[in-house]
């Protein structure tokens, strides 16, 4: 068993921790930092409920040891709204892109990277882009619409705001 001191940037703030080498990043985020928006839905790196951004890339935080995140930057769902809802959050709300909400943070984090890489994705690109995230409630159609809404909003920030 080995313990390690780690320092990382989480949602813009530097945090430090003492972790056992085997501690999964998702547990560090949820238990040590009390950021419980990131969820756990499986044990085979299949469901994507635990998706966070690691140095800007969407990854499954249950398939990474916390110690691997040393000196890196992590963004979780708690950082997405920045002085108001992010267009993706608006889109999910506006287009009914969630039901039970359990997969939603992971979906939003995946979509965030998707739109960063590809600001105007086609429907098919969105579907492939979120194919590492399982949703059991929505049937995905409205999630796709939510991401399309956000893409549109980000590309045309001056377009008329939809009431919220």
């Amino acid at each position, binding site marked *: 068993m080995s313990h390690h001191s780690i320092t990382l940037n989480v949602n813009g703030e530097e945090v430090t921790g003492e972790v056992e080498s085997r501690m999964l990043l998702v547990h560090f985020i949820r238990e040590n930092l009390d950021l419980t928006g990131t969820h756990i839905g499986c044990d085979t790196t299949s469901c994507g409920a635990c998706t966070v951004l690691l140095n800007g890339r969407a990854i499954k935080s249950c398939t990474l040891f916390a110690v691997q995140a040393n000196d890196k930057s992590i963004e979780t769902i708690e950082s997405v709204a920045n002085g108001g809802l992010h267009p993706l959050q608006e889109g999910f709300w506006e287009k009914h892109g969630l*039901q*039970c909400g359990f997969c939603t943070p992971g979906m939003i984090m995946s979509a965030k990277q998707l739109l960063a890489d590809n600001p105007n994705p086609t429907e098919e690109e969105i579907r492939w882009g979120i194919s590492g995230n399982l949703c*059991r409630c929505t049937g995905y159609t409205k999630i796709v619409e939510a991401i399309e809404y956000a893409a549109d909003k980000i590309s045309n920030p001056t377009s008329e705001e939809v009431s919220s």
Partner: protein
Amino acid sequence: MTQLEDRFEHHSPTPEGSSAQVETTDKVRITTPENICGMGHRMKRKEDPRFIQGKGNYVDDVKLPGMLYMDIVRSPYAHAKIISIDDSEALAMEGVVAVIKGQDLEAAGNLHWMPTLMSDTQMVLPIDKVIYYAQEVCVVIATDRYIAADAIEKIHVEYEPLPAVVDPREALKDEVIVREDKEKPTNHIWHWEAGDKEATDKVFAEASHVVKVQIYLPRLHVSSIETCGMVANYNKVTEHMQMYMTSQAPHAHRTVFSMVSGLPEHKVQIISPDIGGGFGGKVPIYPGYVCCAVASLVTGKPVKWIEDRSENLQADSFARDYHIEAEMAADDNGKITGLRVNTISDCGAADAAANPSKFPAGLYSICTGSYDMKAAHVVVDGVYTTKPPGGVAYRCSFRVTEAVHMIERLTDIMAAEVGEDPADFRLKNFIRPDQFPYKSPTGWEYDSGNYEAALKKAMEMIDYRALREEQAAKRERGELMGIGISSFTEVVGAGPSKDYDILGIKMFDSAEIRIHPTGKAIARFGTKSQGQGHETTYAQIIAEELGLPAADIQIEEGDTDTAPYGLGTYASRSTPTAGAAGAMAARKIKAKARKIAAHLLEVGEEDLEWNVDKWQVKGSPDQAKTIQEIAFAAYTNHPQGMEAGLEATDYYDPPNLTFPFGSYICVVDIDTGTGEVHVRRFVAVDDCGNIINPMIVEGQIEGGLTMGLAPALFEEIVYDENGQNLTGTFADYLLPTAVESPKWELGKTITPSPHHPLGAKGVGESPTVGAPPAIANAVVDALSHLGVKHIDIPITPDKVWKLLRDNGVTD
């Protein structure tokens, strides 16, 4: 005849305000302005802001001071004697607090067994033997979840393997007895019949056409993305047991917990916080919950237990597992005359389904579906096998999916037999609109329906006739496409207390509304949303009735200390029962408000009429009091002799179930080389009566459709002959992603329920029920010219490939 015969003879009177209107329309009814947001508005969900910002509160998010963690040792065998359990090494580990075994539970008051919701019994922890793979053997309590996980590896259990029995037909030979604790050494649990055998046999004897099919509907798992879990928090000083629990039915669970444990019910509080999907899987009480509660009782500390996905898939309640043999009879005009069904229900190691007590096979006898016929007879036998116990829903109402799959497959087979197009055959055989309320041959009274309208709409949306032409042209070229129809009838909203109970508790549901002096409100319900959007729809129902803006109404559910008693959310029952209770409670408030308004306006009650959000003097609408004004007066200026305040509670006992329906049409293309099935189009026309929030209804339908696609093409819990689960992770139990899920095309008709206060019916599960046969029918249709009559789901590429190659089709 059976106990179903007179089920509906003693309906309670139709409640006040029921809609007598059962004409079909496609226009959503809206009676309130947008600022009030009553029924029919596409209101954005009130619950969403917390979910989209990561501020939901699920069970695993609950963290209490001094909390311990539980992990479970599970059996690697499907059937084995337990020779010994050596926990000494685990107990010696630093951080391990306790190990709880079956003997410990027995000593604690026979807690090693618990009742199932079907009045069967189920082991909490075994003493003598294990009877299914991944069964809970003992639990470890430790200060940290990592230590608990280490400790279960250090518990050494010696087993003596016994033969497993996986196929219920083998189990019926009683060579291997699963439940040796039972009085009779047999695996046969129960025998159940519905309908009229004699009349049915007569219809079959006189039939011009009889078709028969064997259908296996395999085990499924609901696999909500959140697994099950609990935080049990027993306070030894106050003797108060608080349990945060992934529960779809917190009140019923509290009563069961109290009765089994002996803890007085007022000292037991269940809090069902945000639930990450339920679909039926969070209705039963699992051994893990009981062990977690016992662990807290023993240690006096909070104890958390959160299932892993593999545990969830391997040990929690399954759905389906029905072996069906069904026959249909028709006369020489191609008119369906009868249905005869024999079914074996594989219950696993305990009958732990979540059906109403009188219905061991749930509402399976709804299986005559949307078709008018003279007679039907249905037989079901429940059987034990060495597999995990269960028989819960998979986003459906008590076995209606099994019924619908069978009748819709059989209908296609009969259409082919009589040489008719499956759409035309259905249109000819539907129960006609003028036959409602319709009494079915197995004793159901369908409340309302217009099946022809729904199917015609779906055919129009997808241009059915053109698809048939395209199919014929493609067939000429050796390309395979298929068109499948499913015209299902759902049965939801259990249910009338005369017939529906869970462990004796009647299946009413409840609402309690309190209007605050400033015109804001809080309302609490006996149900529990798992994503259905109750915080929004219930607010809209109250807004509809009282004219309070839905935004001003706080909805709460899931805390048994505060919410009124109800049976919970499953089987699409929330809107039909608790939603109705909300409307009825609101009407009680409205009646009191009328008295207060009359007092304020100094007129007689009979001089007032309701107008959206106010009581106004008839013929003098300027003289009016809004609900907000009335609420303020209820606390500040209420009439002498009247109780202050403005609140009401309603326990709603529905007079009947509701019967949503729909017609789905699916188009598939088949790759003759690989056997892959591609769903090209899927049109779903649903009719769930009056709609409360069209956006939420669409979301429910789209989600349900993907959960219908899943068993049709992907999902199956597979056991090997020794009872080993071969699909124990998401790597092998295949949930569809956004790529596999097609873009659903929705349409609707609206045929209100005549007995529901709002004319609504419930919708969350219709698509899961209706979609699989549409897809299966499409695939069979694509291969029908080869002589293929039936394919069991899931329709995997290797199954299709085999049918293609066996029939000489290659690439």
